[in-house]
């Protein structure tokens, strides 16, 4: 009887929860502007789908039990072996938790890893826009070696990142102080993060690292502040100020911007 009551309540709650995942899940990332962010979002929704019934099972237990079994008479108290274990319950619990975890490891973990490996294969980077990203305390510095732009700046002299929509971008991430190149040990770990792109990679002194992104939406920092470069790894007192504006524009607008940068001598 208790079991049926509990079961019904659990099914109802889980269905409500799944409805909530459908309604709210797509907004989990707030704003996505790259295929990588969409991959992460879809993986999250998949996880939410499976976690919802588990979550409500435990939560319902924590609420149902104190209400239902409050101060029951001692006469109904369970006795002997039945009170101490319940083989089927234990077996189901362990089997389910192993299966769910193996499932999560296969998808989304391993399936996403395969995509990540693929994204770095040379044939998939053919025609990609290469952006040199240099982090120092405390500045993001962008260069476009394919276009001869060494230091992308806006008219006010602030670092700015322009990306053409729909073209694969390969960020080449390095951390050193380009104003003091003789001081090799000067810089620290930063983390290159554009929230709307759904991915961040640390920028580590002494290493060159890569991040591949496919921007999908024409947007900019002015339109949505989630489209900004933000340092995500603490890098000293200037850490909160280490951001830069991002513009994702059409191909033509990008070429126009490159020409303007050339004209400005950047």
């Amino acid at each position: 009887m208790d079991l049926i009551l509990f079961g019904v309540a659990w099914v109802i709650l889980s269905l409500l929860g799944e409805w909530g995942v459908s309604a709210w899940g797509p907004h989990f990332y707030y704003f996505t502007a790259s295929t990588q962010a969409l991959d992460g979002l879809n993986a999250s929704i998949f996880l939410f789908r499976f976690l919802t019934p588990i979550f409500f099972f435990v939560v319902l237990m924590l609420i149902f039990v104190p209400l239902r079994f409050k101060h029951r008479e001692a006469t109904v108290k369970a006795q002997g072996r039945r009170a101490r274990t319940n083989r089927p319950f234990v077996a189901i619990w362990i089997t389910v938790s192993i299966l769910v975890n193996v499932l999560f490891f296969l998808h989304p973990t391993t399936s996403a890893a395969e995509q990540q490996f693929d994204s770095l294969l040379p044939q998939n980077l053919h025609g990609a826009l290469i952006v040199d990203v240099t982090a120092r305390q405390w500045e993001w510095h962008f260069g476009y070696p394919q276009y001869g732009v060494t230091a992308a700046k806006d008219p006010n002299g602030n670092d700015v990142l322009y990306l053409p929509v729909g073209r694969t971008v390969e960020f080449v991430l390095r951390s050193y102080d380009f104003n003091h190149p003789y001081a090799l040990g000067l810089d620290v770990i930063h983390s290159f993060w554009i929230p709307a792109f759904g991915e961040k990679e640390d920028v580590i002194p002494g290493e060159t690292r890569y991040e591949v992104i496919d921007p999908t939406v024409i947007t900019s920092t002015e339109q949505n502040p989630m489209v900004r470069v933000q340092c995500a790894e603490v890098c000293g007192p200037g850490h909160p100020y280490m951001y830069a504006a991002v513009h994702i524009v059409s191909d033509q607008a990008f070429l126009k911007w490159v020409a303007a940068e050339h004209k400005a001598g950047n």
Partner: protein
Amino acid sequence: MASVITETVPQQSRRQPLPPVVRGLIWATIGFLVVNVLMSYVLDPLAGHPFITNSSVVLGWFAAVVGWLLGVGAWEEIVLPSFGILDRSVVTGTGWRQYFAMSLNHKVVGIQYLVASTGGFFIAGLAAMLMRLELMSPTMWLFPYPGQYLTTVGIHGTIMMFSVGTVALVGGLGNYLIPQMIGSNRSAFPKVSSISVWLVPVGILTVAFSPLLGQWTTGWRGYEPLAQNDANGILFYYLGVFALTMSSFLVSLNLTATILFKRTKGMTWNRIPMFAWGMLVVSLLNIIWLPEIQMTFVLGLLDRLVPLPFFTAVGSNLTYLELFWLFGHPEVYIVVLPALALWMEIMPVMVRKPLFAREWGVIGVIFVMLLSGFVWAHHMFTNMTYAEELPFSFFTEMISIPTGLAYMVVIGTIWKSNFKLTVPSLLILMSMFNFLIGGMTGVFNADPVVDLQLHDTFWVVGHFHFTIIGGMVFTWIAAMYYWLPKFSGRTYNPKLGVLGAIWIFIGFDGAFSLMFLVGMEGMNRWVPVYPSYLQPLNIAISIFAFILGAGFLFNLLHIWWAMKSGPKVEANPWKSKSLEWMTESNPLAENFPVEPVVISGTYDYDVDGVAAIIPNPAG
């Protein structure tokens, strides 16, 4: 084995000329001054300029700690006896005085640990309140400089982790309860715990006063190479953590030996209380990983002092990250395993039903311990190659299986039980709810493709506070209410207790669940300044955080009041079968005048009768 009662009574006792704490302070001051002068005037080639240098303050600090420990009582109780001089032992005070001296009574040591930990909790909590105050505005307004904010973050995290998370349940409740739970009159090595507790205030104050040497902006992880790049406050971070971890290491040795070798007759492996299992696995983790992080921090310290290039940009800064998290993730389980064990310890008493599937609960904590050493690099998904992510992701996902077993055991125990909703059981239900959220959000962090977005955002801040406050602090408070009659012979006011529980639940869940949202919306960590579109959520978080802070203070005052003047209760108000409730409430120096003999499991609430008897020596 009957204990040897007269073993430690000194042949010739005398009074100390000064109270131990005062003497400790004087010796510490002398130690610091002598070594500091030696370093900065005699050995330093730039003699006397300035008075305090990096190396003089570090060595002076070590001298001060040695002086403090010797002055507090280690000189008479440990150093002289080990050289064969036995007649200098000093009388430990009685009454309140014994709490301000080295004490061989494990209950006094437990209380000392609990008080020190609580002190650390509120110092670090104050730091958290300052942080939340600053974050109510997207610009700098409370702190003049970002470095000060970041130093506050570091102090908050370091004190919380090393003096509360790893200490309150192990040094505090472990020392107080474990010998009683296994039917012993003392811990295995009373002197070890009696001296290790005095390292806790040293560590807390060292970290809290680190701004004396300058700002440090790395947070509690001391990330390299930023630590080399910061001002000198980081020195006191290394030193304070060294003192605190040393304290936990010694306690762990003592507790492990106590559980392994001091069990009374009949306390077989099948009957060891779950809390003792928790302490055992945690202590083993401590014994492995605390020396590891100490050595790592010594290398970090030498990087600054000498300076060596170990973890700098020309060395290998990722090595530091690996070494830190190699300790850092087991640390999380060091914090939370005692809490899981306490759920399983307290719940059967509350619901009058035997512990469900006990063996699986034990398997759970053991496998969490074993797997905890294989997951560290999930903190580093953003700085490793894609190929390296998979094994760590795998183990991180798998560790939820043994962790989940604790839930299975408790749920099985409370199902169809005679449930008593008391303040401890309410707080444990809350703790299970909160830790569940912590665990479920951890599934997202375990998945690299999602973690690359979540990492280093407020999502992660919400996640680990749900595991640590939700898992450990709620359980700690539950345990304080549960064992209140043991500590004092008095109990709490149920209405105020429920109020306190609901109060912190609302404050906690409000503040930290909103952190998930603000993190997803693009708020990164360690920033006193942020884009203004994030302000509304931050104000809401701050308000809930202040409610939470006041709630903790309320619970502290309530417990304090209950201990001093709460209603008096009988010795075993919960009708527990566990051995610690067989002792007098507010136990005597000797827990068990006669050694008890355990005759059945301590969770067998399905049968009447006691779990242990006190044999009649005459018969």
